[in-house]
């Protein structure tokens, strides 16, 4: 039998606010345990939480960008559970009236077609603290620095069929949120976390199978592997005549498998009720208009503009706009006077090449646009040959050194002296008379060899065009 995997995602994204959702403690990552805390975020009795206006603004911005409907009358609810990561014994979240509903995220599938992933809802909530088990004390240490850090949780409909679609959606989501500036989406610091709901069913069936929820997925790679593992596990169970249990499973990166988590003592009964400490939110048309007006230019809009304004091919426009940091880099290069297509070529070739070789994201790169622009203009002005420029680029990529200086210190400037070139050609021809004869008797390959030898004689610093011409002239002369 052929099986179909059905996947829905719940993604938690930490918002890039300076302060927590209900108090003025910093959201800065790290810090000694319990030093970013106050009576509000540690749940002391008698404290009054007050909503951070930036949290609402960021949630609305995200909702608009994900093509959702903004809930004009919205409120918070308490989700009750006893677990020491929450000192209040409840999490302030939104169940009944989430801020955003019915969003749509278009993704590109493997076959190149567009598919729309439906967003069921997006709601605001607070993050929980960090628990570390102390084996000496056999007790759990609670660090509440993350408690109250604002999150949005984005819940999709079960619209995914493959892990490739899941990754495409997450890439798109991440890029969108970074464009908006509402989150830095660093998976390794936990500012983007994803739970995967997965079930299987016979291909063609319209009924959903029993799903499991997978947690602890800390990278896109882990997500893809966990999906592969879990759908195989469920299919095997069913084929053996067994049943899939609805449960939460934990992905174990080292064992490459999922394991059922001890249920929180069957307390999946969260007894939600309206949060009485936080008055409801009424979102006016003026507020919405204002947020809409201030939405930044998004990837799709940039793509169109790059094609029109800079005359770039679709492919280039798409590559440059996938990451906001890369698009910003490109625009800076153009502003600094570099030619658009030249800049695009360097960014898509060299910059992306270095980033992927170093497994880095564009936003963490040290190289500045002005360094690349200098390099481009040195090539254009004939002061550096292109091959050397690529080498210089690689050398300064991590340091962002002054390239003019670097070229001077390392003696890499292009040699444009015709006498030196003529001398080099003379010398190479004299030492390789066999190749010259070979070429004249029809062996085309000898030509390339001679060019290479002359370039070598010039220590790689000649203008390749000039070398080509000089060799050709000499051969025909």
């Amino acid at each position, binding site marked *: 039998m052929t099986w179909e995997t059905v996947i829905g995602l719940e993604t938690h994204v930490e918002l890039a*606010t*300076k*302060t927590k959702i209900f108090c*003025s*403690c*910093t959201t800065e990552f790290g810090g*000694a*345990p*319990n*030093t*970013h*805390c*106050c*009576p509000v975020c*540690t749940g*002391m009795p008698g404290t009054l939480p*007050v*909503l*951070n*206006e*930036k949290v*609402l603004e960021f949630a609305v911005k995200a909702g608009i960008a994900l093509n959702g409907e903004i809930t004009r*009358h919205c*409120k918070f609810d308490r989700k*009750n559970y*006893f*677990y*020491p*990561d929450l*000192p209040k014994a409840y999490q302030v979240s939104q169940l009944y*009236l989430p801020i955003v509903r019915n969003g749509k995220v278009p993704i590109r599938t493997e076959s190149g077609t567009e598919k729309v992933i439906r967003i069921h809802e997006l709601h605001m909530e607070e993050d929980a603290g960090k*628990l*570390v*088990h*102390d084996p000496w*004390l*056999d*007790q*759990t*240490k*609670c*660090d*509440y620095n993350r408690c109250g850090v604002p999150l949005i949780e984005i819940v999709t409909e079960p619209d995914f069929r493959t892990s490739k679609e899941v990754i495409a959606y997450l890439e798109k989501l991440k890029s969108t949120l970074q464009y908006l500036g509402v989150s830095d989406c660093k998976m390794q610091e936990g500012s983007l976390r994803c739970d995967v709901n997965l079930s299987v069913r016979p291909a063609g069936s319209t009924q959903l199978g029993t799903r499991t929820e997978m947690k602890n997925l800390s990278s896109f790679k882990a997500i893809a592997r966990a999906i592969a593992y879990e759908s195989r596990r469920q299919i095997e169970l069913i084929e053996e005549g067994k049943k899939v249990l609805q449960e939460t499973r*934990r992905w174990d990166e080292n064992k490459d498998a999922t394991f059922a*988590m*001890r249920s929180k*003592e*069957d*307390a999946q*009964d969260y*007894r939600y009720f*309206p949060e*009485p400490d*936080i*008055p*409801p*939110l*009424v979102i006016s048309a003026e507020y919405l208009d204002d947020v809409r007006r201030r939405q930044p230019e998004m990837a799709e809009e940039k793509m169109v503009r790059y094609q029109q304004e800079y005359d770039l091919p679709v492919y280039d426009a798409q590559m440059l706009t996938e990451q906001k940091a890369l698009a910003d880099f490109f625009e800076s290069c153009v502003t600094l006077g570099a030619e658009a297509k030249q800049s695009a070529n360097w960014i898509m070739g060299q910059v992306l090449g270095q980033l992927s070789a170093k497994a880095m994201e564009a936003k963490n790169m040290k190289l500045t646009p002005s360094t690349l622009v200098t390099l481009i203009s040195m090539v254009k002005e004939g002061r550096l040959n292109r091959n050397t420029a690529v080498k210089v680029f690689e050398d300064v990529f991590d340091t962002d050194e002054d390239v003019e200086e670097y070229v001077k210190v390392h003696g890499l400037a292009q040699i444009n002296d015709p006498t030196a070139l003529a001398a080099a050609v003379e010398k190479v021809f004299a030492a390789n008379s066999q190749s010259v004869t070979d070429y004249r008797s029809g062996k085309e390959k000898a030509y390339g060899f001679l060019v290479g030898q002359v370039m070598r004689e010039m220590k790689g610093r000649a203008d390749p065009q000039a070398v080509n011409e000089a060799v050709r002239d000499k051969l025909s002369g």
Partner: protein
Amino acid sequence: MKITEEMVDYIALLSRLKPDAEEKVQMTAELEKIVSYMDVLNILDTDGVEPLSHVFPIRNVMRSDEVSSSFPREELLKNAPSRDDEAFLAPKAVEG
């Protein structure tokens, strides 16, 4: 609505309370009283009435996103039933 012993046990479990037999009897009676009071509300016809989301007629109470200093850790940890130098301590809760 009748409150059964199982319901009390379940609520106690969710609340991490361990009432003894005598307390359970007392709780059952009290809960039943509270829940039956809700029947009074059911007398009213509430069709078409918007659910109340807050008892006060206030809305949109927010603060600006400005950091102020956190609380001294020592003060925060003062009331903890169990603690070390830097953290609250709880019974083992982490998996694995």
